């Protein structure tokens, strides 16, 4: 089976400290869960897959440009949720008419035109996660997506991840929570001290 994204023998050094050390990791169809303690290198693993950190060693292969939704929203605070998502979808050459509907589904119908800095942390997170629907890329990388979400938002996220899997998108989800989406996962990994191993 050909991975849609992978790291081969990858080492990432940040501030003279090897955060990932000779890691080989493949993104295969379905949902891949990645867990591990704080500071283990989970976020760096996703950022390496997204091409956001340089590899000191090894190589990265990826089909297209993965969608990374980080621990922080990655949306410009001076713009509204709608403007942010429209910009990002247009940049990828995706249709932008789906943005408003996606934000409504994520419960942001009444605030989608309000600047991001006037939204709560949970609302900003929802806006960021709505990108799963507006930028349907083959590979989706989610970093602690359940953080800041209430029960309704978490349910919406589970539904969105399942829908993405059904559309044939490969999802990698990093979380420190032990049971979220565990039943849906095709593969589970542990990141610890810069190493990745099957759970």
């Amino acid at each position: 089976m050909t991975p849609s994204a992978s790291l081969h023998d990858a080492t990432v050094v940040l501030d003279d400290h090897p955060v990932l050390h000779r890691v080989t990791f493949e993104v295969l169809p379905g949902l891949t869960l990645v867990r591990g303690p704080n500071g283990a290198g989970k976020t760096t693993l996703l950022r390496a897959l997204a091409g956001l950190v340089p590899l000191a060693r090894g190589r990265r292969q990826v089909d297209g440009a993965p969608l990374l939704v980080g621990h922080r929203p990655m949306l410009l605070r001076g713009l509204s949720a709608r403007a942010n998502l429209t910009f990002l979808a247009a940049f990828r050459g995706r249709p932008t008419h789906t943005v408003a509907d996606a934000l409504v589904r994520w419960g942001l119908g009444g605030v989608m035109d309000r600047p991001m800095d006037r939204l709560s942390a949970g609302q900003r997170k929802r806006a960021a996660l709505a990108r799963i629907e507006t930028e349907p890329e083959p590979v989706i990388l989610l970093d602690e997506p359940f953080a800041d979400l209430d029960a309704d938002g978490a349910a919406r996220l589970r539904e969105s991840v399942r829908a993405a899997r059904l559309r044939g998108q490969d999802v990698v989800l990093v979380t420190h929570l032990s049971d979220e989406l565990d039943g849906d996962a095709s593969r589970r990994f542990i990141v610890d001290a810069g190493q990745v191993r099957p759970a």
Partner: protein
Amino acid sequence: MIARASLVALRELFAERNQPDGLAAALTFTATLVLLESLAFGPGRATQPDVASGVFWIAILFASVLISTRSFDRDLEDDAIDAIIALPGGREAIYAGKMAALGIVLALVALVAGVFAIFLLDLEPALPWHVALVGVMGVLALLPVSVFTSVLALRVRARVAVVPILTFPLLVPQLVAATQGMSAALSGASAEALGWTGLLAAFALVYTVLGLTIVPAAIE
């Protein structure tokens, strides 16, 4: 590339419209400097073309650093810039798009500061269109360097100090050319003003191409 850069430029302009703190800081700073010039040099010397144009371009130089630093500050909040960097062509589009948008913002600052200086100092430009031309080319020559150094220092902790330290030495030739060109335009030396304008155009071209070549590899 042009389409993506245009999207980034539009995003930048909308963000600046919603949060005009960079523009406000630059306008306040340039206006204050022009006002202080008239007090420091006195009404006689302040109106001399070389003094007036020198102070004006020093103000615009600082404004270019203020505006570009604030623009990248905004993008670093919530890691917004990473969403673009992660996309194909994103790095080039950030550089080109920010340059285009911040060029418009800096041109606005230069226009307001210029009008303010003309009225406050009671200047009578001998060649007003040449003054405008030098103004436009000066903005185009200064900005690529400010944006370029802001990109290079993107993840540096002491960025607020590092960007000016990197920028100002690189901009000395542009500052000299803009000051000389503006001074010549104010005093009616057409050929001299056009000569300096040509040099500013060359600086703008070189640093724009250099930025587009280096930024994709340098941005982190």
